[in-house]
């Protein structure tokens, strides 16, 4: 199968980290631009119109969500992945709710990151085990939502199964095999969970997140 070349922008304030990231991405990913601040990132992304932006959760002049907020309206085709080393769950959730399609930790292996970039560029969502565990617990905590709450505030049993396996370290392929579903179906479930995470009004999401730290 012919793998398309993906154009990527890296936004992170640590130059050494950007260099390391670039070195490991392989031939199917082309880094077309780099920025270290929100101020520099926004015009750069608008002019380059990349497929995917790797976005640090924390930037010196604001959170990663500020970049997404400024770009999203004008360039809806650009997709964002949040990168973090150890951040408050609150901040990670803020970036995702601003519109990021996924979240990975900075210790992710280069091959896996490359795979993540392709997945995101194809329109799928990517959850690290930590994010999956977090969402599972955040949607679980406290009383079940009131009757008036829409389907956005609830996870289906199938979505729970998928998240639980993601949190346990399973790949999409392994989850598909274990649940006797296709990889495509798993991707759909994860995308639905992402949509709920972005749109749900559950108070628990922020309240819960405020207490925790994602690794």
């Amino acid at each position, binding site marked *: 199968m012919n793998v398309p070349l993906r154009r990527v922008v890296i936004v992170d304030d640590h130059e050494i980290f950007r260099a390391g990231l670039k070195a490991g991405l392989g031939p199917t990913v082309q880094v077309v631009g780099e920025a270290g601040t929100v101020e520099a990132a926004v015009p750069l992304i608008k002019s380059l119109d990349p497929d995917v932006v790797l976005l640090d959760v924390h930037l010196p002049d604001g959170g990663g969500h500020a970049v997404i907020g400024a770009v999203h309206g004008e360039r809806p085709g650009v997709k964002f992945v949040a990168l973090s080393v150890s951040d408050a769950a609150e901040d990670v959730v803020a970036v995702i709710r601003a519109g990021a399609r996924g979240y990975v930790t900075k210790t992710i292996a280069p091959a896996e990151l490359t795979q993540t970039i392709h997945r995101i560029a194809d329109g799928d969502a990517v959850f690290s085990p930590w994010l999956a*565990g977090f969402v599972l*617990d955040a949607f679980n*905590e406290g009383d079940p939502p009131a009757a008036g709450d829409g389907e956005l505030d609830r996870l289906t049993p199938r979505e729970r199964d998928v998240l639980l396996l993601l949190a346990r370290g399973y790949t999409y392929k392994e989850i598909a095999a274990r649940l006797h579903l296709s990889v495509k179906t798993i991707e759909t479930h994860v995308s639905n969970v992402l949509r709920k995470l972005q749109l749900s009004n559950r108070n628990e999401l922020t309240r819960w997140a405020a207490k925790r730290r994602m690794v």
Partner: protein
Amino acid sequence: MEADRLRRSGSDRVLLGVCGGLGEALGVDPVLVRLGFALGVPLGGIGVAAYVMTAVLMTGPPPGARIRPVPGRRQQVAGLGVLLVAALLALGVSGLLLPLDVLAASALLLVGLGLAWRQAATASARGDGPGWARPLLLDGLRAVTAIVLLIGGAVLFLRQGGDVTAAAASTVAAAVAAAGIGLLVGPRLRRAQAVASAERRERIRTEERASMAARLHDSVLQTLALIQRADDARGAQGLARRQERELRAWLYGGEEPDAPDTFAAALRHATEDVETRYDVAVELVQPSDAPLDADLDALVSAAREALTNAAKHAGTATVSVLARVSDHEASVFVRDRGRGFELARVPRDRAGVRESIVGRMARHGGRAAIHTAPGAGTEVELFLPRGDRP
């Protein structure tokens, strides 16, 4: 802080510079202050006692200040002395002066009180700055004097025996004078203390910064240097991992006590132990936490056993762990993508899986399930119900 202290005046002085210092500190003409003290003299002679007490409370003129020599004001002092004696005599004759024993008693009490207060104030404001290396002897002397004066005053009062009105009068007079002086001096002492405590806070902050710099140097910089020189990638990874863990624990976990007191902390402890011992990376996900109890402790022990097995036998570099705990249930999943094994062929006498994992979970009302096959990796699932807890 020095500038803020209440000092006797060196230049504007008639007797001891008390009125000059007070006037300067309060922004009032010293003549008015002197007038105030003079008015206190007819009030049973309490003005004299108040003057002495204030003199004791105030510190001397700043070092190096120009001090008006005594000879220059000899006339003034003599005149004042004569006036004072005359006033006291007149008061004594007209019966307005408190009886001598009452006056002496209240004067002793006032001065003793002043000494004791000053002692306490300097002790608390001293902090540990080098500028406060005050001779201990002087402190001791002052304390002893204060106690002697207080006791003397009390004894004099007792000796009066029965003269309740006189005792009451002198007590009221002493209280009024003390309150007045407290109003004058109290706020300044408070301000001096606030300055001292601000300085102490700043010092603590500086020390914290220094200790953080030292810590980063000792750990992170050394490790980075080691990694640059390390030839084998695996060794470097191990170093980096250990360093990351240490730094994380230090930054977010505080200084961890030896015995962890929550489920998540205990599991992290166990995980780190296995990581260092067997050189594997454990990807630990534990979004929820609960206080550690005996059952959760057993769950951690079973998880540690499962981790150890994975690290020893699976032959992979990474193991994934998910730990969840709610009011109803706690669960731990330990998963590797290693070589796996055939469960049925594990010898019956092998204690590891059967006793340390399955048996232990059963004893605590939980259960364990093991999914594995040759070449397909291994996953150990541990469940512990927590619903009907007392």
